[in-house]
């Protein structure tokens, strides 16, 4: 069934969009990532203009994250104070990131920088996570006890706060810094930053994986809601019809994803996310390295 999208001004298959939304929703519920890094390129592939794809996927992520976060709240795996600290940091970071992005755009070659930073970040994070979770999985199988979290310099910082759901008593400075740096990257790369935030929370802050997912989703709702509004007001590129089709699939998928997440062990979840991140990284790297079939491309009005 073909549907004409009023803002994108293209006609697409409605069932295809429902399916796309569903798949990304499942990933979102399982791993706590928004899925923007997946859905945006998929929408390009379907023929949606890039500007509309970016803005509209933000809107769909609001829906699927909200759906998934409700499932996590029921399970008490959302750390609200931590989410708020990360959010504050994230908003500050996003503001800095937009300034940097505009400077880079003035210098040209911003596309290349975005692609390269994607490959570098996805590759590093994916690789590290993969190795770590593989070791954890192996240790669990051979019956070795998991390593105790060590006390390091992070625990010596002032402004300590209790994060009950995460079982942490640490300074607010590290989460705030994590929030800021993810915000900067997210604004430059045009994504919500879930795939950077999730590993940062696990490895840098030492939060339990299950709490990380709910908390990441919680702050993603706000980041993407803000992005949606910004795009709607400044560029008029949010396509409500497209968003509706995607989010119907997305909210249902998110519920399933959250359910699947409870059936898996933390190490298994981490290794799956690592594989997903590495796959996206590999695809982007190939795009850069292989000769494209069409050397020329059409961009919208400058």
């Amino acid at each position, binding site marked *: 069934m073909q549907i004409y999208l009023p803002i994108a001004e293209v*006609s697409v298959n409605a069932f295809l969009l429902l399916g796309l939304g569903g798949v990304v929703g499942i990933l979102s519920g399982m791993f706590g990532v928004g899925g923007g890094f997946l859905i945006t390129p998929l929408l390009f592939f379907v023929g949606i203009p890039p500007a509309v794809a970016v803005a509209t996927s933000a809107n769909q992520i609001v829906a699927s994250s909200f759906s998934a976060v409700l499932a996590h709240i029921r399970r008490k795996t959302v750390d609200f104070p931590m989410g708020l600290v990360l959010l504050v940091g994230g908003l500050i970071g996003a503001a800095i990131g937009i300034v940097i992005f505009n400077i880079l755009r003035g210098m040209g070659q911003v596309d290349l920088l975005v692609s390269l930073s994607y490959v570098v970040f996805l590759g590093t994070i994916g690789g590290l996570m993969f190795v770590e979770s593989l070791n954890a999985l192996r240790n669990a199988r051979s019956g070795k006890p998991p390593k105790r979290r060590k006390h390091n310099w992070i625990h010596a910082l002032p402004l300590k706060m209790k994060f009950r759901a995460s079982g942490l008593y640490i300074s607010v400075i590290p989460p705030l810094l994590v929030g800021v740096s993810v915000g900067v990257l997210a604004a430059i790369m045009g994504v919500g930053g879930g795939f950077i935030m999730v590993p940062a929370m696990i490895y840098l802050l030492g939060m339990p994986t299950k709490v990380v997912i709910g908390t990441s989703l919680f702050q993603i709702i706000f980041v993407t809601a803000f992005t*949606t509004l910004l795009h709607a007001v400044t560029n*008029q590129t*949010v396509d409500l*019809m497209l968003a509706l089709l995607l989010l119907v699939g997305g909210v249902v998928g998110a*519920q399933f994803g959250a359910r699947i997440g409870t059936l898996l062990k933390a190490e298994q979840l981490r290794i799956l996310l690592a594989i997903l991140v590495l796959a996206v990284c590999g695809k982007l790297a190939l795009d850069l390295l292989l000769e494209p079939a069409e050397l020329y491309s059409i961009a919208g009005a*400058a």
Partner: protein
Amino acid sequence: MTRLFWLLVLLLVPVKAPAEEELIAGLSRNRISISANFDGSEILIFGAVKRDAPAAEDPPGVIVTIEGPKTPLTLRRKDRMGPIWVNVDTVEVDRAPSFYAVNSSGPLRDVLTHTSDMRHSITVEQAIRLVGASGLVEDPSRFTEALIRIRERNGLYQTNISAVTVRESTLFDTSVVLPANLVEGVYTSRLFLTRNGVVVAQASAAINVEKVGLERFLYALAHQDALLYGLLSLAIAVVAGWGASAVFRYLQG
């Protein structure tokens, strides 16, 4: 009296050969509505050649074009830089039609001379205008070719040779398929009558392509009341997210 008659005949002979010809054209529809289930459309263009004297021996050429709204765009070209492929050249296109179809009654080189094509901007190549490209990139025409190639793949640019049927040098008709990914705006259809590749008569008609119903409403709201539209999008997202969660909780018992 007879001398006067012969004088008149002599005067008329050179006028008679290129008989005055005029085009009269019609469209099957001059309005296309884009509704939610819009899946492309076909438009029929027909007409007749009106003339005072009998037609010349050889049949005339008929060319029909349909042109969508023109917009500026940017074209980029990738090239190898070290191990990776990056965009190296950029060309700004001043005006390129969002849709362009050329239907002709015969091979273009037979029914249209290059000079006439340039004067009336008939083929796709002539309808695209580049600006300031010549100094910046080596071969700007390759960018135009690429634009045409990409849009032809999407059915947005079409050249349909021998798609116009001409009957008894007088009646003609043709049809153009408009794809589903159509942009809103005023489309112009131009018709040309050629003799030996030179345009001798032309006519034009306008087709209004516009969104209707829900499509119209959403598009208008997004542009006129952007903040409300943005908030509406968010409200829908939150309600849908909550709805799915509630349904699943209910199903779980």
